[in-house]
């Protein structure tokens, strides 16, 4: 499943995409993110499956533009810690 967490508002599109078919629930993203955007648990959108996958926490979904801001300086764009940490290449950002 391609899970798009985030929102679109008047200023733009802010989505973190997690490919749950690639995700193995290793929690590397959870420890890599300095702001606690990720967590791992049962897939809430696939209630009949028991596999654990990464997701963006409920508290962060409506403010990731701001929470992710410190990892996205305008002058220099270093690789994102969450994207780098994911060995499965399951995480991407839309902005």
């Amino acid at each position: 499943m391609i899970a798009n967490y985030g929102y679109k508002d008047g200023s733009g599109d802010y989505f973190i995409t997690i490919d749950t078919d690639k995700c193995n629930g290793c929690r590397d993203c959870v420890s890599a993110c300095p702001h606690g955007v990720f967590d791992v648990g049962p897939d809430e959108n696939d209630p009949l499956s028991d596999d654990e996958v990464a997701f963006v926490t409920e508290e962060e979904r409506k403010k990731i533009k701001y929470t992710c801001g410190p990892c996205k300086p305008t002058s220099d764009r270093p690789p994102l810690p969450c994207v780098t940490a994911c060995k499965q290449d399951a995480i991407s950002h839309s902005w």
Partner: protein
Amino acid sequence: MTEKKELWRWTESRWTNPDIDWKGKLITSGVDVGSVSSQAVILADGELYAYSNMRTGSNSPDSAINAINWAMEDTALTLEDIAYTVGTGYGRVNVPFSQRAITEIACHARGGNHMYGPTVRTILDMGGQDCKAIHCDEKGKVTNFLMNDKCAAGTGRGMEVFADLLGVSINDIGDLSLDVEEEPPPVSSTCVVYAKTEATGLLREGWPTNKVLAAYCSAMAHRIMTLLERIGVEKDFAITGGIAKNSGVVSRLEKDVGIPIMTTDYDTQIAGALGAALFAKALKDKGK
């Protein structure tokens, strides 16, 4: 003082299948407590037996109870007869008699699959205060989704505001908006607040009501199109939720997407609750 008409008030409804005798059958239910509307669906051995569709009150547990009670009216069913209930929607954790809460994304995919059949691949749920675009497989399992619940632009609540502003019953907006000789340019913003300001300005310029409605419905269709573009539209394409009943938005969206939109005899507002009730049946069968 004359009584002010509640033009935004959409038609609440309930239905019971007269051909089903529920006794001795497995009864499961799904309750969708949304931001604007609440639905309860009751299945007997997995077959649609009864449903209700009403406005959500200020209290989610009460709304859930009212919805299920209204669905059970005329059926002689009581809460004790229901073997398993799944709550969904915005207030899903506030359904007091439910055994489990499941996201509306999963429930709309499942319900949409049941309503429109296994060929449906893209489901757009246009709710009261949010919008969800979902891809699903032939079994109704979610394969891709996107939800926008931060900004209520392009949702049912905006339509309610426009019904009130323009003095038109919400049930008539769609048809009235199509009754224009030439399609006007869309209002520049779908933000409910800005769009209302803009519409007031258009009325002052002398635009007739149906032309203003056309401009708003068209802006709403464009806005939803930009959301859909992020995940793409795969055939077959269906819409659930209250806006699916608004021909003005649906026909303009159909033009934008370029794919025919499926139709159904079901009430499009019950998709989430129907999905929840189907999950309730599946979970009960699995012994979870």
